[in-house]
């Protein structure tokens, strides 16, 4: 649907207003094929709403979102099978086993050779021993791995991740990041990652979009952001932006 020169995701003057509250206030950005971008911001910054609009789950109040050339949400069915997402805020049915859940979603995404694909992912994500266990009996780390397997079932060209390592211990979180990194490199997928976790974004992302109260406060590579704010970590940059010091610094400069 989209030509090679087109961005995979094109967000243009996107606005979302719930009744009187503006969740997203006119943001624009483009993601190139194979890129991995972090969407950073505090609570209420508009990250989840932005991702939901990109997935076609929420209709924008104004502006537009195009994914793989399709206008969202109107043309979402042209591209949803080429996308996937993972979020700790959405569960998989607890009574169904890992295999059953993955089978259902593989069928929904039109995956051929379902059993083979499930076993490949189970091996890659260390799920073989859990494959016939109900999802409700898994630890949060195991559930995250299953959710990750679900998000990779259709080998998506566009992968949206909403805080993929929230509530995981550092070891599991690091393991998940490693798998995401590998997937992106092998598949050449475009990844958009919303997160609070600065070290995660620093490690994975080649570009960071900083959001605050529904607006993009800054958008650059991690290296450039650190240099511009004169900081050593993205967490410090995040705090500068969150507390308004970024504007003060820019004004002073």
């Amino acid at each position, binding site marked *: 649907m989209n030509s090679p020169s087109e961005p995979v995701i094109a967000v243009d003057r996107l606005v*979302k207003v*719930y009744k009187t509250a503006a*969740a997203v206030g006119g943001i624009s950005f483009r993601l190139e094929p194979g890129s991995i971008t972090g969407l950073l911001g505090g609570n209420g910054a508009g990250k*989840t*709403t932005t991702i*939901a609009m990109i*997935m*076609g*789950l*929420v*209709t924008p109040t104004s502006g537009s979102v195009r994914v793989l050339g399709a206008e969202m*949400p109107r043309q979402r*069915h042209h591209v*949803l*099978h*080429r*996308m*996937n*997402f993972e*979020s700790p*805020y*959405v*569960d*998989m*049915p*607890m*009574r*169904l*086993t890992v295999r*059953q859940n993955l*089978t*259902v*979603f593989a*069928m*929904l*995404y*039109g*995956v*051929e*050779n379902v059993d*083979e*694909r499930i076993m*490949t992912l189970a091996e890659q994500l260390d799920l073989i021993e859990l494959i016939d266990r*109900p999802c409700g009996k898994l630890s949060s780390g195991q559930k995250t791995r299953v959710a990750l397997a*679900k998000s990779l079932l*259709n*080998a998506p060209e566009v992968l949206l991740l909403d805080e993929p390592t929230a509530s995981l211990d550092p070891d599991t979180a690091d393991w998940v990041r490693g798998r995401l990194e590998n997937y992106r490199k092998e598949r050449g997928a475009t990844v958009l990652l919303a997160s609070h976790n600065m070290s995660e974004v620093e490690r994975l992302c080649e570009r960071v979009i900083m959001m605050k109260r529904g607006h993009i406060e800054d958008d650059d590579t991690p290296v450039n952001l650190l240099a511009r704010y004169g900081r050593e970590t993205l967490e410090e940059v995040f705090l500068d932006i969150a507390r308004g010091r970024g504007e003060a610094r820019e004004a002073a400069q």
Partner: protein
Amino acid sequence: MTISARNHIVFSPHRISAMVLRYWYLLRSSWPRVLELIYWPMVQMLMWGFLQLYLSENAGFFARAGGTFIGAVLLWDILFRGQLGFSVSFLEEMWARNMGNLMMSPLRATEFVAALMIMSIVRLAVGMVPVSLLAIGFFGFNLYGMGLALGAFFANLILTSWAVGILVSGLILRNGMGAEGLAWTIMFLLLPLACVYYPVAVLPWWLQIVSWSMPPTYVFEGMRSLLIENVFRPDLMFQALALNAVYFAAAVVAFLRLVDSARNNGSLMQTGE
């Protein structure tokens, strides 16, 4: 790994079967869910069956009207359990916080509805077949003895139950779990108005107009005609079918609009109150 061309199909039986499989996995993994499907229809059938037995031994009319109460209760359960089977399968997604996964998958709203309709028949069969067999054993009432008429009754009742189930599911999707109570109670509004246990003629004239606007009224009148007078009334069934076509189409349109509205106000992202 390849992705099938099925993804471009507007109405995909493959995606519908994925959803049916999901509910089948759930049903067979939980014996309380299966028991619940049989429990209430059986209690209802036994209570009304014994009441009918008592009345038939003490009143001439009821002796003549053999089976009307048990017939009514079994047909009412097709209507009520059909809607509940639809709505509960839908609610399972809300309870499991799985709606986001489904709404962001290639599954289309119409395919979701089709899967819920199939599951309502599956759940109905699990509950009603054993209970209808028990009715033969306990009271000698053979629901299947109605023959082709039963098919007409069933088709009309299940269509109404789906129309109500579709509308309720749309309302829950739009308004959140605060609207869950509708799934359990809305059908009881039809119980007095659709004249399940008594003829329409007992209602005041103005309520009769309301009653005749409901497809189940034609079914229950048709059932009484069959059981009391041994006359099958196809005219009643066709009128019910015409009304059902209108209500079903209206419910699907309303559901699609409610989904759009939910997409607009962000309620597809939330599954809470």
